[in-house]
């Protein structure tokens, strides 16, 4: 069966450290992978998109990698801040559909 697994439900780190979130998938062949941020009571907000032929994509303090052999994406937030605290969702695009993982709730402590 198809699965999208994000490494843990919750991740707690200290301000200034790098947060690393993992997204693993099985039985998908996505051409694209996206990461979204979701705050409580709000809809997800797009952060980054990475294509299957791209190994890495950066945007300010964010970095995403995509390894189609390992079937894994890593999402990094460097120099983390308390304002980065939120749930982060990975999403695979397969055909016309976008399927989401359950998300990882990140808490950055001052």
């Amino acid at each position, binding site marked *: 069966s198809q699965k999208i697994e994000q490494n843990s*439900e919750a991740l707690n780190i200290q301000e200034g450290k790098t947060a690393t979130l993992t997204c693993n998938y099985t039985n998908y062949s996505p051409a*694209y992978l*996206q990461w979204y941020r979701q705050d409580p009571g709000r809809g997800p907000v*797009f952060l980054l998109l990475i294509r299957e032929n791209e190994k890495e994509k950066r945007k300010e303090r964010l970095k995403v990698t995509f390894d189609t052999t390992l079937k894994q994406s890593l999402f990094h937030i460097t120099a983390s801040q308390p304002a980065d605290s939120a749930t982060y969702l990975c999403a695979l695009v397969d055909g*016309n559909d*976008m399927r989401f993982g*359950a998300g990882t709730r990140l808490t950055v402590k001052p």
Partner: protein
Amino acid sequence: GAGVSQSPRYKVAKRGQDVALRCDPISGHVSLFWYQQALGQGPEFLTYFQNEAQLDKSGLPSDRFFAERPEGSVSTLKIQRTQQEDSAVYLCASSFSYRANTGELFFGEGSRLTVL
């Protein structure tokens, strides 16, 4: 409007009632998606429209769920004879792309449905 608008934001229904949830996507966006999000879970795909055509409804959990987008803009998700397991946040998203994989999705704030 500047973003995706959903109404109502909150809906409480008695079991067995019918509900209708509205989504007003960003003007000009051709793709529209509905997702269901249970507490603590990621969004689960329900259905996809390209303009007025419903190209995929494989995620609709039962025949009590029905979605339409008759003029290719506003969409309505209707749930008939609501059950307690229908309680969730229903998210609508739109994209300028004809296919989801070439563009980001813009989400609304969601409609939280509680079935008593």
